[in-house]
């Protein structure tokens, strides 16, 4: 049942983005004074792709850096940084994403860059936190067994520790992707090309249809990405023989 709903949502999203005009009737009730029901200044599809591109690049960069840092502070050479890393992560998560975005503008100017940087910085935290939890809370018997088998440190990391931490790392990436997806809309206030453009156009011209369609596309994307990651996490967890945490 849930799968069917998701498939329907995905199908609707694809059809809507392929031909927004055919859904005009759906948004007509939100329009007053014969305003257009569908945003046409920029194609919805191209906005969606650029929105997803922005989020994708930011999340990918956050993942590489956060997982790398997570590995670093759990090795003997970097252990001294562990308390600091924990503190910075928990404090960093209290920084409001909108404020980070606003602060990035004076340094980077308008356009896609401040959004990208804000999304990257904000995305680091959940992934880093989960990588840390995953790598530090391994069952001791497993680490013991891996050592006993004579695996080197690198082999232990690649063959044992990372695979076991993978479901948690994926959960961190999921969190970060969903937050970024919503935060990217705000990027349009600093001239990034995202679906926020549609919502802001709606706010400025009091056209609720624009607000609804912008919000709808972002919301559906968020749900689909969330579910896709969750399915991936379940599969990974099952593969390594762990019950879903």
């Amino acid at each position, binding site marked *: 049942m849930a799968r069917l709903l998701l498939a329907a949502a995905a199908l609707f999203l694809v059809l809507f983005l392929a031909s927004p005009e055919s859904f005009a009737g759906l948004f007509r009730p*939100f329009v007053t004074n014969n305003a257009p029901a569908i945003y046409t200044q920029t194609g919805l599809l191209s906005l969606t792709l650029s929105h997803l591109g922005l989020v994708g690049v930011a999340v990918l960069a956050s993942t590489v850096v956060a997982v790398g840092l997570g590995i670093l502070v*759990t090795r003997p050479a*970097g*252990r*001294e*940084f*562990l*308390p*600091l890393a*924990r*503190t*910075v992560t*928990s*404090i960093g*998560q*209290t*920084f*409001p*994403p*909108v*404020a980070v975005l*606003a*602060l990035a*503008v*004076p*340094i980077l100017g308008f356009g896609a860059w401040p959004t990208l940087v804000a999304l990257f910085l904000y995305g680091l935290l959940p992934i880093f936190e989960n990588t840390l939890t995953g790598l*530090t*809370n391994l069952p001791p018997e497993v680490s013991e067994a891996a050592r006993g088998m004579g695996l080197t440190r690198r082999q232990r990391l690649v063959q044992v520790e990372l695979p076991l931490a993978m479901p948690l790392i994926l959960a961190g990436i999921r969190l970060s992707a*969903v937050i970024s*997806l*919503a935060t990217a*809309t*705000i990027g*349009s*206030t*600093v001239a990034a090309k995202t*679906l*926020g453009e549609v*919502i*802001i156009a*709606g*706010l400025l011209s*009091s056209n*609720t249809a624009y*607000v*609804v369609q*912008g*919000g709808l596309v*972002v*919301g559906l994307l*968020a*749900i689909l990405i*969330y579910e896709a990651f969750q399915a991936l996490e379940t599969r990974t967890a099952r593969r390594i023989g762990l019950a879903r945490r």
Partner: protein
Amino acid sequence: MTEIPITADSPTGVAISRTGLLFAGLGLVALALPLVQFKPNRIVLGEGISLTAALGPPGWVVLLGLAVALLIGVTDRASLPIRLAIGVAGVAAAFLILGAAVRNLTPPDNNLARVSPAAGFWLLLLAFALMMADALSRMRLSLRLRWLMLAAVLAMLAAILWSGWLDGVSVMREYAARQDLFHRESLRHLILAFGSLGAAILVGLPLGILIYQVPRLKRAVLGVLNILQTIPSLAMFGLMIPLFGWVAATVPGAASIGVAGIGIFPALVALFLYSLLPVVSNTVVGLNGVSPATKEAAYGLGMTDAQVLGQVLIPLALPVLLAAVRIVLVQNIGLAVIAGLIGGGGYGTFVFQGLNQTAMDLVLLGALPTIALALTAGIALDLLVEALDHRKRRRDAP
């Protein structure tokens, strides 16, 4: 959480603190970068000016002092309290230096020129703040001392602000130009963040208790609340305007109790809707976490349902509930900025006005208090959660 012992001594006998090395690196880079930016007026881009150029010959003494302080942190001879002291003093010094630089650079009787903090200042502040945070996180201070630290740091920053030493800094000039408005929007921001939190607790707590008692409802209620979370904040705020505009116009009496499509009301409702999920789900998790044996014992003592709920279940679930309060409060302080875009007030007013006018000092006037507020709320609630946890553990221990 497993604790990993930290061994700082290297086998060669020369003890070097790796974290200290990081902070010193950051700090030294900061000293090489422009400390402030000089702008002929508030909306053009300015030129960067280094610490020594801004302070003149005394600047070299200051530079040397900062470098020595940073390098002391590199040697492992420096104990944690010394590091903490260097961190706190460094944060204060960064602000004092900023004030001095601005005083030196601002030409007399020129009201247009602006001097704003640049990359060097922010990085210097970061280096010392990290040093402070690192020392604090390793010292394992008692809760009471950590409360005192929080209060002391806040008091120090407040004293610097109130002393007027920073009045020449561009952000403070923006503040001086609209003091009344700033105070009004601050109040608005607090009302938005705390008001929506209060409403979410009033509605979410009973809803969570209901789900706890009727588990059948769980899927549906949490499902709806989850979907609410996926609506991007911009759209959520945008949808509240026409919705409540319509309600105020069609439902008799709605307008007279404050329902309106403009102003603070739609923003308050949007924040309230986002706050519901953490409150409801943590209520359920907290209540489910109480062991059945405890509950049975309470009933065995002859307590009524209401007594068990009020005197046993809720007090035991309190740390989890408070964790939800922390999430919601920090999140709402940040999201309330977006209210500025729909005329809901708060610090967002300055952020978006500043972005529209490309007046970055005005953006800072909105962004900095928001960050300060979120940070303070986050740290204070973390301490509160920990205090409750301690008390609970002490009570649970035989």
